[in-house]
């Protein structure tokens, strides 16, 4: 027995020397007063980039996709619901409703469009999503809105390696969560992922799962890179659904946390307790430590739990002070927020309006990316910013007209939003008739337009909870003051109803026409082909006469 144990110890120690990968799981909980609770999970696997195939922690299926298609950076999110920036502030990572996928390919990829199509269809099989519907006709190449978050070689034209597409109609359910969980080293048996019970997390106001792959610097000079695979889940619970303001893991996830994943090097829970001053609540069990963070001018306080794998069931919860439960809350909106809606009536013309509100005391630069499908042609000539065709707020613009069934319409504007103002960007579109077979089976449901992207360079970290670009774990936001806080937001999507024919019309026409033809043709045919002969009316003939007639006829 002792020999066996010795062997085992040697084996484990050898193993830990060889291993170069690292897995961490983190959870961030933030109350969004007065009525919601934000829960964000991130599972980070860092792989020594040279050996993705020999990694013992990273998912092989994803690693193969990345090396086969030479993807430098990849972001995939599957989201149901709409993040309300105005009420909830900013999420750690924003996501568009439905499916959203964008990726940068390595510089030595020749035919990026083909590679992109192959990548989307492979990912569709991996995540049980209809990503194979991504094709050239709904892919754009953002010029200003998206930048790689990973460490890249400084090359001239990084945007030409990028492809972006979104499928706003995509549904998200357990069938997407199942393969997503299978990418984690502990799957759903241990660690934080054991909390992701599909019945509970789909009963939320907003849920989003994502996979983000990028390269991070391996050393200080950044001469080498590691691969970071980050899997995220963002959930927004409504207190009305969980029936009280007091929350606990049992209420949110249906069960307690069964300890950390054995393979993770750190499992940490951060609870944002900044709102404790206005909405007093008590955490049970009490946190292991409290972290203060000063980021720009905004102060945040985190209660931190370090979770170990000791077989203990952990049920963290908050109990609100009943004295304050009737407090009115004034929602302080974030520095910028936005709204998007469709204009017009009838089935000929319409317009998309994007309202951008700058609530801050200095001007903020944003990039707005509008991505209209080919069946919704937008004309640059109809672009109006605050009602003017040539507004001075627009610093730079990019427009790529679409082509029927081949390319979407793509507009990007770099706008300087004046302090404390609302800027309205309007663009008109016209409706297009689709071909008979191009209508989906439920054409009368309406057609979805994807979200617009808004990239902002925020001068303040108010309500900002994203990680700094060089950080990969959550503790990197502690005291991470920077001159600028970059963020990419998604507006709400929209829906239009295209002119849809009555699909039963041909059938009705055929039935009606056939009836009319039959009614008209029958009598006409009879009249034309049949001769009318008057039957002589005589005296009744006797039986012998009848027989004689019969014989006569036979003779003839």
């Amino acid at each position, binding site marked *: 027995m002792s020999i066996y144990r010795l062997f085992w110890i040697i*084996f484990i120690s050898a193993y830990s020397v060889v291993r170069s990968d690292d897995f961490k799981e983190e959870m961030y909980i933030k109350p969004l007063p007065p009525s919601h609770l934000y829960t964000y999970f991130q599972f980070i696997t860092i792989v020594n980039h*040279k050996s993705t195939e020999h990694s013992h922690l990273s998912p092989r299926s994803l690693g193969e996709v990345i090396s086969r298609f030479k993807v430098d950076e990849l972001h995939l999110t599957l989201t*149901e619901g709409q993040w309300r920036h105005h009420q909830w502030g900013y999420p750690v990572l924003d996501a568009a409703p439905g499916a959203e996928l964008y990726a940068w390919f390595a510089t030595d990829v020749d035919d990026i469009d083909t590679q992109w*199509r*192959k990548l989307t*269809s*492979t990912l*569709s*099989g*991996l995540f*049980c999503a*209809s990503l*194979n*519907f991504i094709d050239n006709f709904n892919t754009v190449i953002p010029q*200003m809105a998206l*930048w*790689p*978050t*990973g*460490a*890249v*070689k*400084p090359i001239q034209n*990084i945007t030409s390696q990028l492809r972006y597409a979104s499928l706003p*109609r995509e*549904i*998200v*359910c*357990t*069938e997407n969560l*199942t*393969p997503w969980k299978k990418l984690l080293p502990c799957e759903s048996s241990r660690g934080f992922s054991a909390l992701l*019970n*599909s*019945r509970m997390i*789909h*009963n939320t106001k907003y849920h989003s799962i994502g996979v983000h792959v990028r*390269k991070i*610097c391996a050393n200080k000079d*950044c*001469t*080498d*890179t590691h691969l970071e695979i980050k899997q995220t889940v963002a959930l927004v619970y409504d207190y009305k659904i969980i029936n009280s303001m007091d929350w606990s893991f049992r209420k949110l996830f249906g069960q307690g946390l069964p300890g950390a994943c054995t393979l993770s090097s750190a499992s940490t829970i951060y609870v944002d307790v900044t709102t404790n001053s206005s909405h007093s609540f008590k955490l049970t069990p009490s946190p292991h430590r409290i972290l203060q963070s000063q980021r720009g001018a905004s102060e945040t306080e985190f209660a931190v739990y370090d979770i170990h794998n000791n077989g203990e069931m952990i049920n963290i919860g908050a109990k609100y002070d009943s004295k304050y439960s009737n407090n009115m809350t004034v929602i302080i909106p974030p520095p910028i927020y936005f709204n998007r809606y469709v204009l017009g009536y009838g089935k000929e013309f319409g317009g998309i309006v994007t309202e951008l509100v700058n609530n801050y005391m200095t001007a903020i*630069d944003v*990039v707005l990316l509008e991505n209209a499908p080919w069946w919704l042609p937008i004309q640059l000539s109809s672009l109006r910013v605050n009602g003017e065709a040539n507004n001075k707020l627009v*610093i*730079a613009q990019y427009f790529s007209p679409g082509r029927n069934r081949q390319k979407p319409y793509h507009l990007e504007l*770099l706008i300087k939003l004046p302090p404390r103002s609302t800027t309205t960007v309007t663009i008109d579109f016209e409706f297009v008739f689709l071909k008979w077979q191009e209508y*989906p*089976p*439920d054409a009368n449901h309406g057609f979805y337009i994807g979200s617009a992207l808004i*990239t*902002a*360079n925020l001068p303040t970290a108010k309500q900002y909870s994203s990680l700094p*670009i*060089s950080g990969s774990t959550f503790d990197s936001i502690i005291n991470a003051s920077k001159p*600028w806080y*970059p963020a*990419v937001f998604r507006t709400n999507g929209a829906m239009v109803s295209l002119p849809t024919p009555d*699909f039963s019309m041909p059938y009705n026409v055929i039935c009606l026409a056939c009836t009319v033809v039959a009614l008209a043709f029958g009598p006409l045919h009879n009249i034309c082909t049949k001769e009318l002969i008057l039957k002589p009316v005589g005296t009744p003939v006797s039986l012998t006469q009848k027989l004689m007639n019969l014989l006569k006829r036979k003779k003839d």
Partner: protein
Amino acid sequence: MYRSTFLCCTFIFIFFIHSNQGVEIPEKFQKSNHTNNWAVLVDTSRFWFNYRHVANVLSIYRSVKRLGIPDSQIILMISDDMACNPRNPRPATIFNNAHEQINVYGDDVEVDYRGYEVSVENFIRLLTGRVPPDTPRSKRLLTDEGSNILIYLTGHGGDGFLKFQDSEEVTSQELADALEQMWQKKRYNEIFFIIDTCQASSMYEKFYSPNILATASSLVGEDSLSHHVDSAIGVYIIDRYTYYVLEFLENVHPTSKRTMSEFLAVCPKSACLSTVGVRRDLFKRDPDKVPITDFFGSVRPVIITTEPINIIDIPKRKKTNTNKSATPEKHEYMPQFPMHLLQTTK
């Protein structure tokens, strides 16, 4: 790694000892060409009021998965999202019963074709294997001449056709031709074809390829009926035929000795209110002697050897030539905003 090798060695050693005593291979194993199992489960109807069809197809999915066919060998096609539909008061669940007895959707489900992907073209392409080159493995029917395939279809149909998504239909002749193509391409050993729709038996009448056993929930001229309404969701929750099939399959286990003829008699007219049709003439074996696990379970590929295999001697991998001499290139994080455009304007 060493431990697993050690285990393997002991396993083979034990096997070797056993094989010395002589292993008798049962006769039926030698005769059968059956080596693997696949299932193609299709729900063809969209819209909330067709909730029951999704419940039907998930009932069969649950059963075949429980009886051992892995997810990689089940092609599940679901036309619409019922589980996470906003009208579903119990998100991420689909029940077979208003009393919420069995959540047929479960916690571990992989849908291969969903939504608009469920079309006649994709279904026929899947069966005949003529899929586009980039199709991922999970969306292909990678069967061979040893595969037993279970095909289950549910939706709205009529005499000689089955509607897909309320916008197109597959006819019985097209389906029969697709199966013949599969036979000629050696894509199956035996097929068990189940269809739960109105006038269902019209769909298998045109079949002419060998080794197909077919059953249908109703004969030509009959409607297949649904089982009961769940007042919480406001629509019918499951169809009669599949309801009784699930009830029967819940009592089947991978080791049980139930036969196909028991399965074919699962829903008498008193329960189904329609006559279950069966077509046996293309099937060579007697359904009385065919175990149900030939179609609903899974056969693991088993190779019986009498010779010991030496697996200690693993061929060494060829080292790939990585350019380690290349000078390390400097990487950097880029600004997340088009700063260069701003600076020029200032």
